[in-house]
């Protein structure tokens, strides 16, 4: 069989075998509806609440503050729109950053059309939001600040605790999209000082289609999905028990060896970066060099468009992602690179390598061995590359 190397763990991850094992009993045996009062339902309910407790424990939250959703996108939408709708009387101003995931950005754009005012904070060339910019932007009408923890494209980590402190001082709710940081580093909602935090199971070896929103006690928020009294009436819909059990189990697993895995991934990415830059000229790291999650490298290969590299790697069984316009569907290159001031052609030339549990140093060596030839072949074809 052809060798397959997956270097796109920020897009999604395979379900961990123990996660799947934990989920299986709830498809056919413990399949009840957690709202039913008979034994079938109670069994599901117990699993649901145990999962909630587990998740709360790993986030240093109270189980009553954990709400299960269908994923990161729903969590983000619920946080942003939910707070906006519920706090109309206080104001109609929301602050976010230019580098958020589309789930936050598009929620904000939707609210903008509804008459809300949105401030999109700029970032510096490393991708960091400026403390003073945030401070200046908060005003009487501000009801929410939403700034992501780790950026999905770059891996940059924002100093959330500090930024959230500014919001808290002014009595403004703070939400963070922790979809990319959860599972890759310690998450403590109190240390982070946030009122809401989004996460998505499939980013940390859990199943797709399930996520959670941490909502600190006391936060006023209108539901996105109305219906039954599930999730304390904040998120209606029959609970996806196998998925929720899987989410909790996945969180448990990533926590069981987090520091070790952090160190391992950091070493893999560092080795990869070192070898790539040794063997290929004109490669640039995008985003902050240090404030980053351990698994992610965003590199620009001058003179070569991202998709054309992806396709060549794909032909060798290697899966990576790019922020190039031609793969994004929007036909615009990465809004994150644009916000960081990366010039258009370098933005078009960017590739994201995101490592994970399945990767070893062998994978690094394999990719590093193939990449130079691919890049030089493409550069030979490029009208804008001069050695």
């Amino acid at each position: 069989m052809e060798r397959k190397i997956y270097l796109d763990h920020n897009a999604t991850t395979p379900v961990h075998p123990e996660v799947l094992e934990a989920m299986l009993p709830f498809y056919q045996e413990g399949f009840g509806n957690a709202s039913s009062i008979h034994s079938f339902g109670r069994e599901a309910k117990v699993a649901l609440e145990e999962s909630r407790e587990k998740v709360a424990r790993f986030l240093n939250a109270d189980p009553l503050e954990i709400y299960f959703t269908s994923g990161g996108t729903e969590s983000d939408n619920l946080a942003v729109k939910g707070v906006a709708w519920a706090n109309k009387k206080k104001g109609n101003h929301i602050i976010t950053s230019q580098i958020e995931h589309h789930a936050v950005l598009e929620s904000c754009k939707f609210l903008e059309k509804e008459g809300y005012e949105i401030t999109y904070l700029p970032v510096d060339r490393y991708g960091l939001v400026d403390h003073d910019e945030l401070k200046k932007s908060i005003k009487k009408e501000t009801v929410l600040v939403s700034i992501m923890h780790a950026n999905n494209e770059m891996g940059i980590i924002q100093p959330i605790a500090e930024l959230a402190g500014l919001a808290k001082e002014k009595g403004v709710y703070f939400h963070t999209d922790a979809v990319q940081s959860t599972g890759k580093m310690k998450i403590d909602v109190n240390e982070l000082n946030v009122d809401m935090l989004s996460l998505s199971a499939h980013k940390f070896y859990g199943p797709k289609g399930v996520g959670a929103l941490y909502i600190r006690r006391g936060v006023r928020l209108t539901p996105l999905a109305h219906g039954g009294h599930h999730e304390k009436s904040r998120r209606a819909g029959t609970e996806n028990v196998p998925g929720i059990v899987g989410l909790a189990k996945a969180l448990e697993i990533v926590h069981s060896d987090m520091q070790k895995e952090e160190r391992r991934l950091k070493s893999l990415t560092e080795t990869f970066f070192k070898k790539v830059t040794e063997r290929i000229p004109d490669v640039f790291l995008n985003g902050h060099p240090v404030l980053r999650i351990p698994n992610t490298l965003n590199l620009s290969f001058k003179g070569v468009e991202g998709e054309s590299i992806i396709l060549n790697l794909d032909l060798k069984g290697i899966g990576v992602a790019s922020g190039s316009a031609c793969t994004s569907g929007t036909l615009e290159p990465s809004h994150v690179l644009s916000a960081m001031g990366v010039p258009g052609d370098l933005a078009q030339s960017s590739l994201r390598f995101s490592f994970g549990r399945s990767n070893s140093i062998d994978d690094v060596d394999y990719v590093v061995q193939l990449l130079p030839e691919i890049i030089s072949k493409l550069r030979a074809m490029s009208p804008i590359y001069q050695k």
Partner: protein
Amino acid sequence: MAYSAKVMEHFQNPRNVGEIENPDGVGEIGNPVCGDIMKLYIRVKDDRVVDAKFKTFGCGAAIATSSMITELVKNKTLEEAEKISRQSVAEALDGLPANKMHCSNLAADALHKAIEDYKNRKKKNE
């Protein structure tokens, strides 16, 4: 997004990559939609395109259409070459994914620019 086998074949083995020294016409075009850039060189003899080469900074579709158009245009009269449309390139590649149709514009536009360039040079020399 799924490319046809033909697209992938041209992407993997692009024909006529490079530059023509002292070309008779050059067409350079940047795709304002996605930032791709293509440079197409032609050699013309007796109103016939006898050689074509390209350099492209772009996605799989951009490279494949570039390669395909250099094949399509070779040994065509200028008149015939001018008739090569965006559509004909896409068809020759057994189609392109819907969200990549804009890339096929690149190659056809670059060719037409190169022919125009050739004609302008000729006019100047006359």
